[in-house]
């Protein structure tokens, strides 16, 4: 078998590209990116709308432009690319890991690599996942599938549309379908608040007069070969439909934007420890998973709102993986971690990344990314501490689960903390 790769990246979307480019810049030379689609760029290719890159590139780009910037950096880098290739399994080893993959032109084969970066992204929840009663008519699609049909393949998916769920993709598709001549009758959200970014509610729904029905859900889909009518009902505080609130919408299309699931089948089968809160692997301060030399970044780790943060996160993972490979050679790396601290979401916090930190491996500053569990309209204080001491805190006038937040802490402050657990909480 050939020399092992220094890094094998699974997924050629923004996360995989960010990790590969950063690893190259930090000294690795044998890097392979494996992508199952025919081209690199991942989901950015179908996100023709703008709003990407403000944070990272300092200008407003569309999805394809952002992807183009990233793939442009690959030119002349020597990073190897395998498209139209599916990774089937990961086999962790002591010094090298093995990755088995399949493609139409090369068949089945296995490659050895010193590090793996998991960058498989996420996929959409479907009708089956939320179990909407009704017929199995055509015209029920996830918003992302519809986005691919409309924006890349050039097929219009319907004329009269209802959107279930107010996640960002659903909002974006409500506008997209409207601009392409469809009538979007409503966007229906079971929660009393939207999971999408505030700016998307404004420019995708309000701009086009599309009503957002909060605390409502679809309780029945009717239609024989094609969707004909859906029933929408209000829900009570425990999210159960309220009798007598039925409303009927004559539509031919139902678009679902009901959540994203990090795509971690490979991760689980490899025996990597998972966090049920994020649906992704547990990671240390440098994005390394519970298995040495396997790192994770992007939506496979935690579902992000902004690709800009995916790029930043994947650059950190790529840099850490490079340090791991190059450090192994000097043997100075990987002293036994003397203190591991668990970072735990407390009151008001849904999840936090990273979940574990090794104090002796920290850089000068570390950022913890988190989501709140419910929206608040009154000012709240976010606090990270060991129960007695506060390591970092900040105030926000309002917060929502739809918007990922972060809190920055100095290494020196963390070293003063006592115990093995840090708690992230929200106080009034």
């Amino acid at each position, binding site marked *: 078998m050939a020399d092992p790769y220094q890094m094998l990246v699974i997924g050629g979307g923004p996360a995989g590209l960010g990790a590969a480019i950063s690893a190259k810049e930090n000294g690795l030379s044998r890097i392979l990116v494996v992508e199952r689609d025919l081209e690199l760029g991942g989901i950015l290719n179908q996100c*023709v709308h703008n709003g990407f890159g403000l944070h990272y590139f300092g200008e*407003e780009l*569309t999805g394809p*432009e952002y992807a183009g910037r990233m793939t442009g950096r690959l030119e002349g880098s020597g990073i190897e690319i395998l498209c139209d290739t599916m990774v089937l399994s990961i086999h962790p080893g002591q010094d090298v890991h093995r990755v088995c993959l399949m493609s139409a032109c090369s068949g089945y084969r296995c490659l050895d690599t010193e590090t793996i970066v998991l960058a498989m992204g996420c996929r959409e929840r479907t009708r089956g996942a939320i179990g909407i009663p009704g017929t199995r008519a055509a015209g029920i699609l996830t918003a992302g599938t519809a986005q691919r049909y409309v*924006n890349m393949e*050039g097929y219009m998916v319907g004329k009269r549309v209802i959107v279930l769920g107010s996640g960002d993709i659903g909002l974006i598709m409500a506008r997209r379908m409207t*601009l392409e001549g469809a009538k979007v009758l409503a966007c229906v959200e079971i929660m009393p608040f939207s999971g999408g970014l505030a*700016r998307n509610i404004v*420019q995708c729904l309000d701009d086009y007069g599309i009503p957002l029905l909060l605390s409502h859900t679809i309780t029945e889909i009717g239609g024989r070969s094609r969707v004909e009518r859906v029933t929408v009902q209000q829900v009570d505080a425990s999210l159960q439909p309220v009798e007598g609130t039925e409303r009927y919408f004559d539509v031919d299309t139902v678009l679902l934007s009901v959540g994203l699931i990090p795509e971690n089948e490979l991760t689980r089968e490899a025996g990597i420890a998972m966090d049920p809160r994020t649906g992704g692997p547990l990671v240390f301060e440098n994005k390394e998973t519970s298995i040495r030399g396997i790192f994770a970044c992007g939506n496979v780790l935690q579902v992000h709102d902004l690709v800009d943060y995916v790029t930043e996160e994947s650059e950190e993972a790529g840099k850490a993986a490079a340090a791991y490979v190059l450090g192994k050679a000097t043997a100075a790396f990987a002293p036994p971690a003397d203190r591991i601290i668990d970072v735990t979401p407390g009151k008001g916090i849904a999840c936090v990344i990273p979940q574990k930190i090794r104090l002796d491996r920290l850089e000068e500053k570390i950022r913890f990314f988190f989501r709140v569990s419910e929206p608040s309209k009154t000012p709240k204080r976010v606090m990270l501490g060991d129960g007695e001491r506060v390591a970092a805190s900040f105030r926000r006038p309002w917060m929502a689960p739809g*918007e990922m937040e972060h809190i920055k802490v100095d290494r020196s402050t963390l070293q003063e903390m006592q115990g093995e657990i840090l708690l992230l909480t929200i106080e009034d």
Partner: protein
Amino acid sequence: MVKELICIVCPQGCHLTVEEEKEYQVSGHRCARGVAYGRSEAMNPTRVLTSTVCVRSARHPRCPVKTSQPIPKKDLFRAMALLDDIVLDLPVHRGDVVVKNILGHPADIIATRDIT
């Protein structure tokens, strides 16, 4: 009249208040772009339009496009109608002008990806 807006310049989504009587004075912003957005949104709302046009390519039947700068909100559907008849030939490069001065505005329609 006092208008309550959510700033859409960046994903922060600041809650702005624009007071028309006070010469469109803006409050609630966290950066200067919020002031500019609040004023223009109250006086003459504009948007960047993004869509796709047809390409003669088996692998990529659609090419994504955008307006090179925002156009008035009221013209979005007229601009969309103009895109219906456009068919591009290969190769297409990011930044290629597809329609110059759409509807007489300073904005062009430009391609947002390479298709070769």
